[in-house]
């Protein structure tokens, strides 16, 4: 662990290295590759089994896509409806335009409670706004209660997956972190022993910390209800013992009707963890006297979402219900894990969501971090056409970059501009093929293969050979054959 700090991943899109560069240490890390591959195989196999048993899976996807699209197209109205119903039930709704406003609102609410400590239900949205370091700096200790989040918090790690944030960490690494941070020298790596250690650690927090922060899987406009699903029951503890609950939710999380949960919960559990139903489905509406938190706040976070909503082609990104099926299916994520994406949102959804949340000012390597294989779109329970959005974002990045003079002689840009000239006229294309044969001649070995190329070509030949150009192109063969026939 001693040298871990030097390779500590940066999950802030504004300063993270570009994807190809950030991926390198991940590709060279056999432990990480094995942990990620194993965890994904387990989840994928469970998911495949449970999806196969639903004969109406495609209909469910169609329904979910329609519900989410409708909610987004009428987002303002549904958010106001949610606010009205939540307020009527005793909650207080706050609106945060960006991350810094959300952090300030939450700190202000904690100060009102005189809180110096807070327990947290797993929420990626709080990681998006970098809430924990902000609160710690302001003197509020944060205690994650989701097992994976505890592992990361105690091990000073970063999430690499949105559903299973410590997916890259294996059992023996968990043992080491718990033993070191909980002072349990004789802890074994038996899952039962590790769970017991976490439980003992958590119980004390649940019983002593009166303030909690959660995210939200869904907000229901019709009833003002907040929904959180989880596997461990630690979220349920945060929803019963503390006096005050502050929920942070992206504005896109809203569903029109309570009944819509029927569709969403079936898809979410199967897509995310390969379960028929999440073990804990917590729904709460405002405040219930004598039961659970007696003060309840919802912070609705925009943080770039409105600008995504304003683009018809990109809007579908916000349909996401954070199931992570896309990253589990992604052959790129499988090799790199999540940290290479430089964001708390990794994988295919992260590759489209992160640059958009940054309003296309940062994370511009992410839309290119995909082979466009389409596996993400195939599994997405709300039918986000991720490849389509990737292409849209690629076009935007290219449009921005190609204006810069420094890009003029960039081999990739130059090559693509030249290729465009060649493809405009067949005779130019054919002349270029002829010159290509001459030009590649010196690089072509006797066996007809190219083993090494300069510049961009070298990126190919660093791991792959390239067959040399044939002495006769197809169109030449065709022309010769026609001539012969006459």
């Amino acid at each position: 662990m001693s040298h871990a700090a030097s390779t500590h991943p940066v999950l802030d899109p504004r300063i993270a290295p570009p994807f190809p560069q950030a991926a390198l240490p991940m590709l060279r890390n056999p432990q990480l590759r094995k942990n990620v591959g194993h965890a994904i195989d387990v989840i994928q196999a469970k998911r495949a089994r449970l999806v196969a048993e639903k004969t109406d899976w495609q209909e469910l996807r169609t329904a979910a896509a329609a519900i989410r699209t409708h909610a987004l197209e009428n987002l303002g109205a549904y958010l106001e409806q949610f606010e009205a119903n939540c307020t009527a039930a005793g909650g207080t709704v706050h609106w945060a335009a960006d991350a810094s406003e959300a952090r300030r609102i939450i700190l202000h609410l904690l100060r009102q409670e005189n809180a110096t400590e807070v327990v947290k239900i797993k929420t990626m949205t709080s990681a998006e706004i970098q809430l924990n370091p902000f609160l710690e700096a302001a003197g509020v200790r944060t205690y994650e209660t989701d097992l994976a989040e505890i592992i990361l918090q105690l091990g000073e790690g970063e999430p690499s997956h949105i559903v299973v944030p410590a997916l890259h960490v294996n059992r023996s690494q968990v043992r080491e972190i718990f033993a070191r941070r909980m002072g349990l020298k004789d802890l074994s790596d038996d899952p039962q022993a590790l769970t017991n250690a976490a439980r003992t650690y958590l119980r004390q927090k649940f019983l002593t910390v009166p303030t909690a922060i959660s995210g939200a899987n869904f907000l229901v406009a019709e009833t003002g209800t907040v929904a959180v699903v989880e596997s461990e029951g630690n979220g349920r503890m945060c929803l019963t013992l503390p006096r005050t609950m502050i929920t942070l939710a992206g504005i896109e999380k809203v569903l029109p009707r309570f009944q819509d949960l029927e569709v969403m919960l079936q898809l979410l559990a199967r897509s995310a963890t390969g379960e028929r139903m999440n073990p804990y489905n917590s729904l709460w509406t405002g405040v219930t006297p004598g039961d659970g938190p007696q003060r309840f706040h919802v912070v609705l976070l925009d943080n770039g979402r409105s600008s995504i909503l304003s683009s018809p082609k990109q809007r579908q990104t916000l349909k996401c219900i954070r199931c992570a099926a896309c990253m589990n299916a992604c052959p790129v994520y499988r090799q790199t894990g999540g940290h290479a994406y430089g964001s708390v949102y990794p994988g295919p959804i992260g590759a489209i969501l992160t640059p958009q949340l940054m309003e296309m000012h940062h994370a511009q390597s992410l839309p290119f971090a995909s082979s466009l294989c389409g596996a993400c779109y195939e599994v997405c329970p709300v039918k986000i056409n991720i490849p389509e959005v990737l292409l849209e974002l690629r076009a935007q990045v290219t449009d921005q970059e190609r204006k810069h003079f420094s890009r003029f002689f960039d081999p990739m840009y130059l090559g693509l501009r030249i290729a465009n000239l060649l493809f405009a006229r067949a005779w130019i294309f054919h002349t270029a093929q002829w010159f290509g044969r001459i030009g590649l001649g010196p690089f072509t070995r006797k066996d007809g293969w190219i083993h090494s190329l300069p510049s961009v070509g070298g990126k190919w030949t660093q791991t792959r050979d390239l067959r040399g150009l044939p002495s006769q192109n197809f169109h030449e063969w065709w022309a010769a054959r026609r001539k012969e026939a006459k």
Partner: protein
Amino acid sequence: MRASLFITCYNDTLFPETGRAVVHLLERLGVELDFKPKQTCCGQMHANTGFRGEAFSQAKRFIRLYQDSETVVVPSSSCVAMMRDQYPGLIAELGNEELRKQYGALLPRVFELSEFLIDRLGVEDVGAYFPHRVTYHASCHGVRALHLGDRPWRLMAKVRGLDLAAVNNADRCCGFGGTFSVKNAEVSSAMLTAKLQDVLATGAEFCTALDNSCLMHLGGAMHREYAGMKTIHLAQILASTEDSLAEVDL
């Protein structure tokens, strides 16, 4: 039956043997084939790299060039996927109503090779002979964009002498992805290594596919690593007969 062959830019340049095989195969099946010498590229490379204007020029060129063809056959699944999935967006953004109509009229007549054989000609047994152990790489665009389904397997099942070896994780990408293979060369290589492990484990002599771009990637690594397996486009297997064996250097 008349058909126009769109060979694609990279097949013309790098894999003329695939084009020759398509010609021999389809002529054997009685198709009257023509080849438009003005053809170049479908625009996929530009579209996938964010060069939308350039991609549109090539899309427009393709549509205009083939609008009078009875049918168009394309031995490259990713190029057909480009035409089906990306042309509409490009035309909506940069084209006009006339082009949209021409595209709408042309599209149902554009076929990927296995679609053309099975859906248009209605043949599964093309009379081929290829006495080798072969594994099939189901390219991403063939599986998820064109939904080719069991078409390739139905064609291969009828090839005399062919010993078909199933590959694990058949629908997983080989890591090519066009410019992805150089923009993210290391990640692409890691994906390729994983794919190659599954492909080589089949013990096949040949790895075939309906897209030479994946095969260029897999074949490039096989050659680099002296892997003892070669790549071959399915058209070349289907063109191969007892009298005229496939163009492979054994």
